[in-house]
């Protein structure tokens, strides 16, 4: 099976993997609504995506932490596209606290962007797609969600929550013909990861986007690592005894 996406929303499309996905979707002929906080970045991504033969690209300034505005933004985006086949939730923030740092406000913000915003956006799409008996939802989780890591506690918690939420959504709506796709990238070279000291097996955002869209097009509601070889790493990491895992510099 190869699904075709003609009308797509990309939330968190102003940079990184989201921007690459938006560009690739538009290049494939899909009409794309790109949402993000930074309008200048959105305009830049949209300008790059607009090309002869590409699908129409619209932008919408949106802050996923403003929960009350999500339903309205979703409605406006769907209206501007004249329907919806694909929602990609790519918004995410990462913070690596210093030793001894407990910035709980920042942790809450991470949960709002990475988990709560995702739940609202994908939940709205799920309701629409369940009624239509069709549609694809993609959320970008992370291999980091496999374990609670001392170096990035809120981030790993938010991604674990997102992975579990997407699994629940998959179990809820895949029976109604909705394709629910969880992607768990390893290291991707983006603005967000630029400051990280070690980035083994890193890939570009364009490469990640192309693997993610390929997984989404295959259908069958997969939960998959990007690229797939991270699956083996995840298997080991998941099965490390806690006493050993906490000693690692992860």
């Amino acid at each position, binding site marked *: 099976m190869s699904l075709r996406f003609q009308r797509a929303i990309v939330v968190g499309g102003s940079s990184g993997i989201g921007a690459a996905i938006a560009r690739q979707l538009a290049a494939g002929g899909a009409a794309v609504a790109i949402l993000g906080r930074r309008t200048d970045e959105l305009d830049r991504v949209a300008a790059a995506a607009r090309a002869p033969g590409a699908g129409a690209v619209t932008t919408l300034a949106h802050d996923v932490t403003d929960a*009350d*505005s*999500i*339903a*309205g933004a979703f*409605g406006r985006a769907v209206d501007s596209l004249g329907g919806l086949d694909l929602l990609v939730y790519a918004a995410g923030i990462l913070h690596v606290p210093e030793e001894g740092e407990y910035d709980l406000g920042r942790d809450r913000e991470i949960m709002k962007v990475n988990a709560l915003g995702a739940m609202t956006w994908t*939940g709205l799409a799920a*309701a629409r797609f369940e009624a239509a*008996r069709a549609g694809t939802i993609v959320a970008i989780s992370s291999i980091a969600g496999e374990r609670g890591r001392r170096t990035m506690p809120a981030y790993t918690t938010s991604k674990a929550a997102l992975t579990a939420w997407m699994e629940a959504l998959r179990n809820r709506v895949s029976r109604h013909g909705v394709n629910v796709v969880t992607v768990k990238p390893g290291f991707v070279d983006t603005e967000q990861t630029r400051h990280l000291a070690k980035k083994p097996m890193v890939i570009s955002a364009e490469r990640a986007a192309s693997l993610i869209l390929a997984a989404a097009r295959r259908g069958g509601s997969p939960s998959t690592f990007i690229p797939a070889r991270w699956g083996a790493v995840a298997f080991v990491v998941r099965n490390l005894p806690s006493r050993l895992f906490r000693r690692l510099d992860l």
Partner: protein
Amino acid sequence: MTGAGLRAGAPWRVLDGFGGSQRSASLFTRPRSVEELADVLRQARAERLPVSFRGNGRSYGDASLNTGGLAIDVRGMNRVLAFDRASGVAELEPGATIEDLWRAALPHGFWPQVVPGTMFPTMGGCVAMNIHGKNCFKAGPFGDHVVELDLLAADGTLHTLSREREPETFRAVVAGLGLLGAVTRVKLRTKRIETGRLRVRPVRTPNLAAMFDCFAQRLPTADYLVGWIDGFAGGAALGRGLVHEANYLSAAEDPQGRSLLDNDRQGLPPSIMGVPRSVVWRFMKLFTNDPGMRLVNALKYHLPESFGGDGSFLETHVAFAFLLDYVPNWRAAYGDAGFIQYQVFVPDSTARACLAEVLSRCRRRGVVSYLGVFKRHRPDEFLLSHGLDGWSLALDFPVRPRDPAPLRELTRELTDLVLEAGGLFYAAKDSVLDAPQFARAYGDRLQRFRAIKRALDPDALFRSDLSRRLAIGG
């Protein structure tokens, strides 16, 4: 409702029509009182959010769906407000069901004047759709027995409507598809009965003409009369089926039936042929296909019922009235794609030829109804009602999402046939008509309805997927 308003704060819900073939995602709320309902309407108006009403979701198509809008579930307002034991006049909130009504009435020797084939529709739905039952030829539709109702309009004003107070509005609200406002109270008459049973007489009719003749012969004396049609039979047997006639009994005719004026003695059997009712739909699913339903229909036609010496038997009101409730969740037998019910109403003068052609077109197209139900009707006073001096045929068709064209083309053809014959349709069942077809069927009545809607609801607050599809108003 949260402080964030309805758009941002109300939960979403995927709702479907009873046929399961139409669905929508909409915002959802269930107010518990008229005051809460008024608050919700005020907020929806402020947010320019289209509003529809929903009870137990028994309309087969899209009448209670409101894609992207707000579905107000009236089941939070479900009290029986009053029952007059002397006159049998009942007052109920819109979320109270037919079951609530008969349970309030029966112990005092009354029964609802009109019930459909299921006890689960709410009063709001019964008014909005102007439902009918197996006695529609004699008792008319539900609205004929409504004495008075309260309507909460879009501007927040409460109108008490009856044949004396704002009669034009009353005649638009009944059968008004929930498009003029929220019905918040229904006052209606019930019928005095002497026993808890009916005498039922089944008659086998070898074809459609025989069914018409059987009805014609029994209409003057019957209290209830309903025909079942085997849609798979063709040729000389086209339209064959069974007619069930039922009559109320006097205490003298059925002395033991007095003790059945007891809610606990009116229940449906817990099992069917030894199978618990709750799982029967799983067995039905095995047969819900063309060969299976051909067999089931043939067996139903040929197998004798449990007749008494004179070919009749006694049955409780509940057992006779609520056939659709024998098998809980029976609609699941049609699978995820569901089914549509398509009911046509044809004037007496053209009915014999038209309904014969309807049945034969189904066979020719290879799209055969799994269940056919035949009734006689009388005209009524309500603007968008389906009632006429004529006959109706209700057909259940499975939906095949991978091959939707045959059913779509068939229903388009049948609709044209019925329009040509001067017929009408029933919005509670409809999911196939388009706006020009509906306008052709209802003509001037639709114009009058629209004028009343413009006056009562100028901003078209009340809308549904059905009202948009049929361009009824707003």
